């Protein structure tokens, strides 16, 4: 218990308010009110036997009829143990490969993630999230926040990073709380990592870029710069297609150019936006690494990259007069100019990105959390109404089917 006390003393000494949640050993970023599952537990749910639902679904699939989204949502609602989580996973897979796959409801996905976390099946939740094509799990922002916070509490930053990459693939960085949490996770992982493969660099770049575009402060601008720098590095080393294929990124070349444009914008804008020295150092290192060992790099590239780049880039870059490779010395010069200009204007932030993000979280997260919780309560109401409507419709259909059957039987008996 000494460590939290020491931390508390440090925080008090720096006159920063305490974080709201403070379990011994486990500390997440979101407050207890956010992570609290009482409202979700208190929702009205129909109690059904899982075995009945399972046999109903099996029979429906055998007869090649569509299963309704209500059945699968009832199944996921009534999970009560770890084995049932596995059964539900199987039925989610089957639902995704049935004619009604588009109709998998938001509340089913939310309930699935909550149940997984409740019964300690977080690896299962992560697996279904990563294989979203096969399971159809596309959570909303609130659920993403819950999942990330769970992993942050367990200090499992690797899994939290996977969650952030999934949010990036779905381009779900609309809500500010998600942006802040994911930036925190990203900077935490970047601080620890030394070398990454080009796929990881590309994922990091895109995940830094997308929330950075939404945040209008120095953290956002520095994230944009950092993201563009990483993507530019992958672009020069691996070709443009490696950057945008299967990623939510544009196919226009010149990511390093865009990084320099961010710097120009900050230098010329009258606002108080600053860029972190860390991000600028990364861009500097990237440019130098790509320019300096030019013969060595091009030799390696011509051996490895020939297979991957080769004729494909010839086709795409027919219209481009100069390649990125040839523009690198010019980029380096521009960077040096802009860097000195920014330092002269005093727009360079010397604190580390992780510290800045943590400060931003402490200041702004409570307000965003309150908004999110209000929105979540409204959504719970909406889901409840929808569910009632669906149950009503199902009842009506059953009545109609029964009446038709009776009518047909009466007609057959009389004939």
């Amino acid at each position, binding site marked *: 218990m000494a460590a939290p006390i020491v931390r508390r003393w440090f925080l008090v000494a720096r006159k920063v308010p305490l974080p709201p949640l403070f379990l011994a050993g486990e500390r997440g970023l979101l407050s207890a009110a956010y992570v609290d599952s009482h409202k979700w537990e208190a929702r009205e749910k129909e109690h059904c036997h899982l075995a009945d639902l399972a046999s109903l679904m099996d029979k429906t699939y055998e007869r090649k009829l569509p299963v309704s989204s209500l059945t699968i949502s009832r199944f996921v609602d009534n999970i009560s143990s770890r084995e049932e989580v596995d059964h539900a996973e199987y039925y989610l897979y089957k639902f*995704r*490969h*049935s*004619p009604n*796959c*588009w109709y998998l409801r938001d509340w089913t996905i939310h309930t699935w993630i909550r149940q997984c976390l409740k019964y300690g099946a977080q690896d299962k939740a992560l697996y279904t999230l990563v294989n*979203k*094509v*096969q399971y159809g799990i*596309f959570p909303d922002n609130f659920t993403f926040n819950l999942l990330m916070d769970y992993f942050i509490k367990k200090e499992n930053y690797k899994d939290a990073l996977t969650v952030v990459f999934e949010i990036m*693939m*779905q*381009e*779900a960085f609309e809500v500010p709380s998600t942006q802040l949490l994911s930036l925190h996770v990203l900077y935490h992982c970047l601080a620890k990592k030394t070398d990454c493969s080009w796929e990881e660099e590309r994922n990091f770049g895109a995940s830094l870029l*997308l929330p950075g*575009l939404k945040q209008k402060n120095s953290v956002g601008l520095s994230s944009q710069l950092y993201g563009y720098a990483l993507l530019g590095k992958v672009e020069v080393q691996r070709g443009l*297609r490696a950057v*945008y*294929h*299967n990623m*939510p*990124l*544009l*196919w226009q070349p010149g990511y390093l150019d865009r990084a320099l444009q961010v710097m120009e914008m900050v230098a010329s804008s009258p606002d108080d936006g600053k860029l972190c020295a860390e991000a600028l150092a990364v861009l500097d290192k990237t440019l130098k690494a790509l320019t300096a060992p030019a013969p060595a790099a091009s030799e390696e590239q011509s051996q490895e990259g020939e297979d991957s780049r080769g*004729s*494909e880039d010839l*086709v795409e870059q027919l219209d481009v007069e100069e390649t990125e490779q040839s523009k690198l010395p010019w980029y380096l010069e521009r960077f040096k100019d802009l860097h000195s200009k920014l330092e002269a204007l005093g727009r360079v932030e010397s604190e580390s990105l992780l510290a800045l993000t943590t400060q931003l979280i402490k200041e702004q997260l409570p307000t965003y959390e309150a908004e999110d919780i209000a929105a979540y309560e409204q959504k719970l109401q909406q889901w409840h109404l929808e569910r009632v409507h669906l149950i009503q419709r199902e009842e009506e259909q059953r009545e109609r089917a029964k009446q038709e059957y009776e009518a047909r039987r009466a007609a057959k008996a009389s004939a």
Partner: protein
Amino acid sequence: MARKKVRPRLIAELARRVRALREQRNRPRDSQRYALDYETLTRPYSGRRLPVRAWADVRRESSLMQLLSRLPLFGLGRLVTRKSWLWQHDEPCYWRLTRVRPDYTAQNLEHGKAWGVLTFKGRTESEAREIGQVMYHDWRLVPKHEEAAFTAFTPALPEDAPRCVPYPPLLRAMILAERQKRGDACTEEPMLNLERTRVHPWDYPAKQEAKKKAKA
């Protein structure tokens, strides 16, 4: 010439209907018809190889449903473009998706149909229609943060309002005489429409309904 009366062949009719029903039930799904062997670039269903010009594209790009299977709600409301349009035209050409029906028999849900509103070279159509050539490996998804920049378009030539002009006097007299002969009591002044007839470029997407009717 007196012909013998044709007996209605009921069993043949019944057999025809049963055959049609079985054909409908066992029809090849999209996932079977458009499955592709990426090593040899042949479609296993028909055994045919893809055309030569498609080989490079098939290796690099993705088909529309391959992109949409990775998105929530199969990418409803998102913008998709084709690489061939990006290379051919400067103005923005894209489909905005309104309805997607994936083929559930596919393993990765990477086949299916989609409907949307077309914007070709900056001009948007008024109605949604089926997207053609969905199985071509030619599609790209426009990221959300780039949508505004991608769709921004100012037409080079100003759009003229449809101009109508009165006919020359002899033609006008002829039209009025024609009307009188027909007994048409219309007193409206006959106007000549000066609007340019729009000629679509060769890669303007054709209407899928018309194609299906022509095939059937």
